[in-house]
């Protein structure tokens, strides 16, 4: 049996970031076990008929935790950012917000009555520093306005950023996001998300670490309250290795299953059980011409289900065969929970696609409906339900978006969770 300093379970954004930092910056011997035949998890991409499709993350944050990590690891951060980044489609016009007072302009454009926009703006100003606790955005908005335009603005922002409907988004987290100023800049990697996740995997291997794909982890072995090893199978062959530290990137809940719930106090089991996923629905449309002419994200405050439309091939033509384009319509379902009524939810998203991309079905060569949910979600935790990375086992940590810090989203949040864990291991090892 080979021993490692650290065994990372799951090669998603959090696991790869933790593995890369621990191997390259701390000199630890790292093993990464990945169940799928590729690394990156929902931070990867697959090629389908010459189109590059994401396995989860639709756009990647620039100037955030991921770019910082790449810089620290001396990796080129190849991200192409559309300009301008965002526009809002309201009453048949696409509106480019001014750098100052953008939110005011947006509300005034969207609300039927300008005095309603003023009411909401005042409420945002009054409540931003100490938002009412436990209130969803829809409940909070209802205190101030019933203007559908205002709801539409918040729906597009919440759906596009958190991937949740207004009923599922706590208002406090919305203000915390505004304060954190995260995800202010985004783009698309020309080689797909796989290019970036592979670069992180490359760092691990360059520094003596190992990555095993198709490795199905069956158990984390525990002795005296410590994780001491991991057992897995590759194509039916059983293997195991010992470790000083275990880092799990498969979600806090499934981590408990691998360890055995008997090792965790009821309070921790309950807390982890309360974390709910945020679902995302997408329609990816392949066509021989771009279906919109704007390269950034076109937010849709007047849509039913969709939060935005984006045509990444205007920025990265590499993502499609020559002369072809891919347009993505994305939105959260009405509720991120089972049972999921696919016909109803996708039906509404298709209605939006038809409304904002008239005749898309005729112009498209093919389109694919995908739902990210049930263990492969948009986000493993909804805003406002954040767990820390620690577990009751002193040398077992979780990374990834089930334990992300508040105010951060997507891949950047996963990277940040990994940083926290790396700091904890570094401190304990006195490296």
């Amino acid at each position, binding site marked *: 049996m080979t021993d490692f300093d650290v065994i990372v379970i799951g090669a998603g954004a959090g696991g790869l970031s933790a593995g890369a930092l621990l191997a390259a910056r701390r000199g630890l011997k790292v093993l990464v076990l990945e*169940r*799928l*035949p590729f690394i990156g*998890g929902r931070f990867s991409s*697959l*090629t*389908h008929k010459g189109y590059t*499709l994401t*396995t989860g993350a639709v756009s990647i944050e620039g100037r955030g935790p991921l770019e910082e990590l790449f810089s620290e690891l001396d990796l080129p951060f190849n991200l192409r950012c559309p300009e301008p980044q965002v526009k809002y489609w309201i009453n048949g016009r696409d509106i480019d917000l001014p750098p100052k007072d953008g939110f005011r302009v947006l509300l005034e454009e969207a609300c039927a009555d300008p005095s309603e926009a003023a009411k909401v703006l005042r409420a945002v100003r009054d409540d931003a520093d100490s938002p009412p606790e436990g209130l969803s955005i829809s409940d909070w908005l209802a205190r101030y306005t019933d203007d559908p335009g205002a709801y539409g603005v918040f729906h597009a922002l919440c759906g596009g950023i958190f991937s949740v409907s207004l009923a599922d988004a706590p208002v406090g987290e919305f203000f915390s996001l505004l304060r954190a100023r995260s995800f202010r800049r985004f783009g698309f990697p020309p080689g797909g998300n796989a290019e970036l996740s592979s670069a992180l995997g490359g760092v691990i291997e360059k520094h003596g670490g190992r990555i095993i794909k*198709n490795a199905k982890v069956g158990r984390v072995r525990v002795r005296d309250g410590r994780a001491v090893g991991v057992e897995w199978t590759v194509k039916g062959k059983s293997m195991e290795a010992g470790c000083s530290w275990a880092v799990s990137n498969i979600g806090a809940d499934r981590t408990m299953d691998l360890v055995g719930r008997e090792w965790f106090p009821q309070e921790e089991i309950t807390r982890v059980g309360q974390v709910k996923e945020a679902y995302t*629905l997408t329609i990816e449309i392949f066509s021989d011409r771009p279906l919109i002419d704007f390269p950034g994200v076109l937010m849709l405050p007047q849509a039913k289900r969709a939060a935005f439309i984006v045509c990444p091939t205007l920025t990265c033509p590499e993502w499609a065969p020559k002369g072809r384009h891919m347009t993505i319509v994305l939105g959260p379902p009405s509720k991120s929970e089972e049972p*999921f009524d*696919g*016909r109803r*939810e*996708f039906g509404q998203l298709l209605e939006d696609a038809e409304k904002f991309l008239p005749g898309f079905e005729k112009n498209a060569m093919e389109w*694919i*409906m*995908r*739902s*990210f*949910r*049930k*263990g*492969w*979600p948009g986000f493993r935790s909804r805003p406002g339900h954040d767990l820390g990375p620690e577990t009751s086992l002193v040398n077992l940590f979780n990374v990834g978006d089930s334990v992300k810090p508040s105010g951060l989203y997507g891949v950047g949040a996963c990277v940040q969770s990994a940083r926290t864990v790396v700091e904890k291991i570094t401190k304990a090892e006195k490296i």
Partner: protein
Amino acid sequence: MTTRLKINEARCAGCGQCTLICELEALTAEWGRAVVDHDLCVLCGLCLDFCPLEAISMAEE
């Protein structure tokens, strides 16, 4: 008895990963779940590895 590809609907999320890697277009994602066209499937098993939720299996029918 025939061996056929089987989708476990309780597990399938409809993420479409299986449909992307199936070059024979035997799998499609429809309304939030994967659907197999048994006439096109040659039981190569590639989709079993790529399904993140272990929702696909080979079953004797």
